[in-house]
């Protein structure tokens, strides 16, 4: 029999970012025993990267703000492909989750009367983002980490799960390896919460870390779960493009919020040429008005640089494509006109980032930027109330789940998403665990996975996992990034299928103890499958909507306006299905119509 260590919990949580840790708290408060598994050290998850803030209609800045406006903004941002019930729960519970975080120990920036200060962000009608300077994500994860430790959980750091264990249509645990010594570990959970985050490493320009390889998405897919909206990847319009080592690293929206201007190689402020009719009435008409907006938001309209992320990203793409790009293939983002003192005070971390890592003094010189992969809107279909997926006993929350953001996510909604649905998933999982026991361990599944894991160490010559990753990133960048066509997607798919065949022959040197090459071998398989799912769904959606831009189908389509794409493993084939978007009930429809 195979050798491995086994751990048993009422609730197993996979992922220790914001969603996973909030799920731990939820499950602990219901009295469940909880084990949490994380690929990194505790507190290093991608949540720390979030800068802007956490959106919640607290109404601390404008009393008029309430859950209904937040609901409307989120549905509009998502181009109405969102699940209305998910958004309703989210908007209603967001304020309570933020206030509770404060009682766990988070210290948000304050208003003059001592309440949580909130900042403006794209797509939100009111100032709504609770924040701590430009490190809100760190505040959130550290707070949840400390509180979860206080409530008691067993943490398995630097442990990677590679396969969900199933008993019929129920998920009962997971198997994987410890990074430190390479040993195999099996976790049995009466209920399992998947909070494994997003995926973006399959693109060349990405703000995602090594962790975002799509393991969670693909593990769930392989186990038979239904996935939805995977064609929608969010591209942040301004990633660093130079120097090479910094490629993809985010330049916060705050730079544009503080008056940063986008220019092409002709020195032209091109965003004025890319204002869609839909946004014309709320966008500044002249550079003068745009400049005044920074200090007087009441009497002036927003600069075109602050149009929604998908609009700005496309404009940058077009400028570069049409030959007006910067030296290194991006465009210029210039904030130097605001002066040294202002920039150092308002954008200290950006000033530092560019000066020390890019040799660029942003108080004097423009930055070079290009869109970078940022966030995955799609993921596991989950019940809005309980977060239970299409598989019994498997609950999903955070970026790996879907339904909240639809076709495009509003900045600030993801941090709150972690809190609202992390809690619900944890509580529902704990309740599920009171009704169910531990079925016997499925030895065959464990042995199969160990065979997949160990193959790259079997010796001899073979493919290098990093070469395959690089080829994949090239193909996804070219074929399935911001601008897509039938042809570009087909080309990407052909490459992916060819790489999948090569990936079977991956070989790496060394032994399993902290061996990044060996870890990369398994990650590569996840990256290939998740890429295939993205591309197949993108081929299916023959329209342009939200972050999904088809050059060959440039307009929105009536059929696709009312359908999500659901992907599921069917025997050994991929089943792709258009499923009607749930009808919004009359009382919520009224809210949507109120503001339009």
């Amino acid at each position: 029999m195979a050798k491995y260590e086994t751990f048993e919990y009422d609730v197993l949580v996979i992922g220790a970012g914001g969603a996973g840790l909030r799920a731990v708290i939820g499950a602990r408060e219901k009295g469940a025993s909880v084990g949490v598994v994380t690929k990194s050290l505790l507190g290093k998850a991608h949540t720390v990267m979030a800068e802007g803030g956490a959106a919640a209609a607290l109404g601390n800045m404008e009393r008029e703000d309430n859950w209904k406006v937040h609901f409307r903004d989120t549905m509009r941002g998502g181009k109405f492909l969102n699940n209305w019930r998910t958004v309703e729960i989210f908007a209603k519970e967001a304020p309570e989750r933020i206030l509770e975080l404060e009682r766990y120990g988070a210290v948000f920036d304050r208003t003059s009367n001592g309440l949580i200060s909130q900042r403006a962000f794209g797509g939100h009608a009111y100032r709504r983002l609770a924040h701590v300077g430009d490190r809100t994500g760190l505040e959130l994860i550290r707070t949840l980490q400390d509180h979860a430790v206080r409530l008691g959980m067993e943490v398995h750091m630097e442990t990677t799960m590679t396969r969900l264990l199933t008993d019929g249509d129920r998920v009962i645990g997971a198997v994987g390896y410890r990074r430190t010594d390479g040993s195999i570990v099996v976790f049995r959970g009466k209920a399992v919460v998947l909070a494994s985050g997003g995926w973006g490493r399959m693109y060349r320009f990405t703000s995602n870390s090594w962790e975002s390889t799509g393991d969670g998405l693909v593990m769930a897919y392989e186990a038979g779960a239904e996935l939805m909206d995977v064609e929608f990847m969010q591209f942040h319009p301004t990633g660093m493009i130079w120097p090479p080592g910094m490629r993809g690293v985010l330049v916060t929206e705050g730079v544009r919020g503080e008056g940063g201007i986008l220019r092409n190689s002709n020195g032209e402020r091109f965003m004025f040429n890319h204002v869609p009719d839909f946004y014309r009435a709320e966008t500044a008409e002249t550079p003068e008005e745009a400049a005044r907006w920074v200090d007087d938001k009441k009497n002036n309209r927003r600069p075109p640089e602050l149009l929604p992320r998908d609009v700005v990203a496309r404009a940058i793409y077009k400028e570069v494509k049409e030959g007006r790009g910067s030296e290194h293939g991006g465009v210029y983002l210039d904030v130097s006109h605001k002066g040294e003192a202002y920039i150092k005070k308002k954008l200290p971390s950006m000033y530092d980032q560019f000066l020390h890592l890019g040799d660029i003094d942003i108080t004097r010189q423009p930055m070079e930027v290009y869109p970078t992969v940022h966030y995955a809107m799609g993921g596991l279909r989950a019940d809005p109330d309980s977060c239970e997926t299409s598989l019994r006993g498997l609950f999903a929350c955070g970026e790996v789940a879907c339904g909240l953001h639809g076709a495009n996510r509003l900045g600030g909604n993801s941090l709150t998403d972690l809190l609202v649905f992390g809690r619900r998933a944890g509580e529902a999982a704990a309740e599920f665990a009171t009704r169910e026991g531990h079925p016997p361990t499925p030895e065959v599944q464990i042995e199969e996975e160990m065979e997949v894991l160990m193959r790259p160490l079997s010796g001899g010559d073979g493919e290098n996992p990093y070469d395959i990753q690089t080829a994949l990133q090239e193909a996804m960048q070219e074929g399935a990034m911001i601008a897509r066509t039938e042809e570009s997607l087909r080309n990407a798919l052909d490459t992916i299928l060819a790489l999948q065949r090569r990936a079977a022959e991956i070989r790496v040197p060394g032994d399993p103890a902290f061996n990044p090459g060996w870890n990369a071998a398994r990650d590569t398989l996840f990256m290939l499958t998740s890429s295939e799912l993205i591309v197949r769904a993108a081929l299916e959606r023959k329209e342009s909507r939200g972050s999904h831009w088809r050059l060959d189908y440039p307009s929105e389509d009536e059929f696709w306006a009312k359908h999500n794409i659901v992907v599921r493993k069917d025997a050994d084939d991929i089943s792709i299905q258009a499923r009607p978007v749930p009808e919004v009930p009359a009382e919520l429809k009224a809210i949507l119509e109120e503001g339009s």
Partner: protein
Amino acid sequence: MAKTITLRVYRGDGESGRTQDFTVETFPGMVVLDAIHVIQKEHDPSLACRWNCKAAKCGSCSAEVNGMPGLLCKTRVDALPTDKPITVYPLKTFPVVKDLVCDVSWNFEAAKQIQGLTLADEGSKEPLRMQQIDVDRVQEFRKCIECFLCQTVCHILRDNDRKDLFFGPRQMIRLASLEMHPLDVADRAEFIKDTAGVGVCNITKCCTEVCPEHIKITDNGIIPLKERVADTYFDPVQKLLRWVGGRK
């Protein structure tokens, strides 16, 4: 023509090790973490190194470059002398797991013992009221990314290996962030003195020097904690009051 550099990297575990030289081509703006990634891709994929965000926000890639503890993602290659190999070693203060990765679990164990934020109205759902000026200092401490560079340079932990005596600068900052929270009502003085061992620190300020978040660890955190302990335990007036009041 492309320039090359040589990195002399520690290879091994806690028991035995050696260094291995790798030559890599540089590119503009290259940081040491980039060079490590080139080694993994082109020379030896089994070279172990922790990293996550590559943007100095997560604090995973701490190591010692040419003897100086720092974040690999923030250490520019072109800022280092090129006439000899660049040495890259794991943090000295913690046991090595493999190559550049060390076992930092002690820090998490110490953190577990610290009592978290404690409010007078525990259980209430009312919004907290605090002025910005009153939370500025706490927010400075909460910038900590847990890179443990302060822990690795602290001579009590590094040279004397007295993790049994002192929790180290990182946990002092955590304690300070709680003690200075305007609404916290817990009394951690005894814990800070006896368990966390604040008295052992003799203020060499090495921790402040290496902090990538520029937290004034000693001046703003540790010294006020020392003062708090001194007020509680060594101030004769306080002592008398406690004696009269019958408290410990």
